């Protein structure tokens, strides 16, 4: 469980998240990609805390802030998905072609 | 992670025995209370044998299934519910020796296990590919989100006098005074949330009769028996945690520690089982409104009061 192995795993999670966020058409799947990216970031932060920072609590604080960001992004993302659907009847990015009020 | 010096086999034996005994006690209590409420009187031996007869009758039922269910998720849901009950019971000390798993953040592990119960019940409602189970699963998602905040806050309030998140430390901090006296708001809120976690009695919303059995509507035979046993196991776990967190665990005058734990757990079980037969099932809309509007502020008051008392 060396630092290198942990960082490679975190990079893999981030890479899969980038693939998902770019390739999916529906809003909910794009959000899943974003969640995976933040999860990779959390794993990398805690790996650094455990192996390179000697238990400095600010490393854990970074992970807590990242989890807060994850929660806020999920909540507001879902609310926006619902709002967009109500106004524009669009649940896929392809349907939002016109910049119209 | 320091595990209490118990071999894995002994750990499985201890948690397994506690769960099996607890499930049996629930079944007997349930039969006794329902007979009493219905006005019938049953002899004691019939009550003690009744759980075995009901289990045998369930096992002899024909096994039915639905069209194109998600069979893997269905199996995972039932097994996960039982596993989460065992996982939650792992951190509760059943005697003065300590819990099977001496986890320094025992309360958080218990909270995580009870949060994952929501996933298990939702999957159990989703996988039969049928309408009423799915509605039951959805209703449980709303119910679970409503009771989770009061449950977490009340357990945090219990951790404050002990200055530790470990359940053993919480029990040890009740040496002179039980938490039910120090924090009077705690136990009622915890019992309501515990009834919600185990979806029993007045909060038996996902498996309710108005949904034809809800998430268990399409279950039969061994799967139904396993689901009901898992649900009773969750009730045992939350009652054991309530006994440890509020009623002082193994502390008590004459009898040995494990006997006190069993008595207190059975007392909480009896309260919930009796409530199941005397109180009507609440409407989900009412429960959600009351939980968010009333229970969360009450739980916050509980945390503030216990915090002030701990800072004194």
């Amino acid at each position: 469980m060396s630092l290198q192995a942990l960082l490679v795993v975190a990079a893999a999670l981030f890479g899969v998240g980038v693939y998902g966020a770019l390739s999916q058409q529906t809003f909910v799947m794009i959000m899943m990609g974003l969640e995976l990216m933040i999860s990779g970031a959390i794993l990398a932060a805690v790996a650094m805390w455990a192996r390179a920072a000697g238990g400095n609590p600010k490393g854990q604080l970074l992970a807590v802030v990242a989890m807060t960001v994850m929660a806020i992004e999920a909540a507001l993302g879902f609310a926006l998905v619902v709002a967009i659907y109500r106004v524009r009847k669009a649940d896929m990015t392809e349907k939002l072609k016109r910049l119209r009020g | 992670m320091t595990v209490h010096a118990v071999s894995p086999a002994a750990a499985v034996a201890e948690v397994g025995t506690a769960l099996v005994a607890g499930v049996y006690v629930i079944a007997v209590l349930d039969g006794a209370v329902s007979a009493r409420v219905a006005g019938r009187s049953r002899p004691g031996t019939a009550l003690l044998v009744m759980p075995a007869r009901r289990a045998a009758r369930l096992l002899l039922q024909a096994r039915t299934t639905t069209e194109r269910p998600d069979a893997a998720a269905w199996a995972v849901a039932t097994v996960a519910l039982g596993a989460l009950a065992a996982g939650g019971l792992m951190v509760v000390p059943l005697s003065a020796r300590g819990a099977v798993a001496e986890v320094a953040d025992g309360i958080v592990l218990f909270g995580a296990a009870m949060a994952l119960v929501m996933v298990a019940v939702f999957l159990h409602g989703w996988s039969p590919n049928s309408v009423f189970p799915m509605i039951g699963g959805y209703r449980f998602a709303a119910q679970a989100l409503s009771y989770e905040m009061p449950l977490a806050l009340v357990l945090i309030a219990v951790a404050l006098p002990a200055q530790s998140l470990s359940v053993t430390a919480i029990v040890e901090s009740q040496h002179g005074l039980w938490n039910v006296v120090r924090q009077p708001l705690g136990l009622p809120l915890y019992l309501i949330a515990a009834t919600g976690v185990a979806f029993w009695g007045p909060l038996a919303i996902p498996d309710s009769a108005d949904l034809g059995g809800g998430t268990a509507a399409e279950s039969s035979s061994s799967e139904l028996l396993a689901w009901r046993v898992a649900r009773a196991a969750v009730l045992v776990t939350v009652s054991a945690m309530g006994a440890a967190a509020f009623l002082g665990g193994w502390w008590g005058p004459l009898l040995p520690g494990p006997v006190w734990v069993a008595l207190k757990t059975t007392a909480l079980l009896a309260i919930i089982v009796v409530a199941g037969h005397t109180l009507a099932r609440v409407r989900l809309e009412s429960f959600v409104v009351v939980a968010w509007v009333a229970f969360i502020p009450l739980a916050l008051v509980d945390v503030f009061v216990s915090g002030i008392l701990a800072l004194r």
Partner: protein
Amino acid sequence: MTGSWLVEVFFWAFAATAVISAYLVFRVDSMVRAAFWLLASFLAVGAILVLLEARFLGLVLLLMMAGEMTIMAVFMVMFMMNPAGLNPMTMVHQHRTAVVAGVASFLALASVGLFVRFPDRPVPAEGTAQATADLGGELLGDSMLIFETAGVSLLAAMVGAIALASRNGRFGDAYVSSRPPDLDDVTAASPADGPAAEADEAAMDGGGMDHAGMDHG
């Protein structure tokens, strides 16, 4: 630590679970299974965090993700056209670009992880309880401003999400003042062109009639 090879085995098992189930999220047809594969990925990451002696963070991640993924499953059923995966279909766009971007970001970050020389200051082996206590002291001590800001941000997010998603309108409760969305397929072309085309025609008619009126007069 006794049995550290066991810890290594568990770590690689959890790491493989995390990455494979993350990939499966975008591969399965059944949408609810996608949400729960994401939960499996998060459970594996939480387990790795517990193995790393950050047990509090791992357990909190598990707790958070249980609720979040159930809600995501509910949203999948609401918004995806194929929630149970009964008709296999792939809905991806710019697939090759996405693969290239994913692989490139993985290679970039992995090379940073492998080739940079990080300091070697491991957390003490039995330091989990101390880690939780340190986190508590940090949150309420040096970093209280960050903690309070995070709390207020969460509150603002809750209020904003409810305001965006709630159906209550200016004229009262939802069931009084809003009408449900109609279920026929509204394409992008017709509502935009319809009123505009009619308006254009009305303007042209008015212009023709006016000219005719003025010519008469």
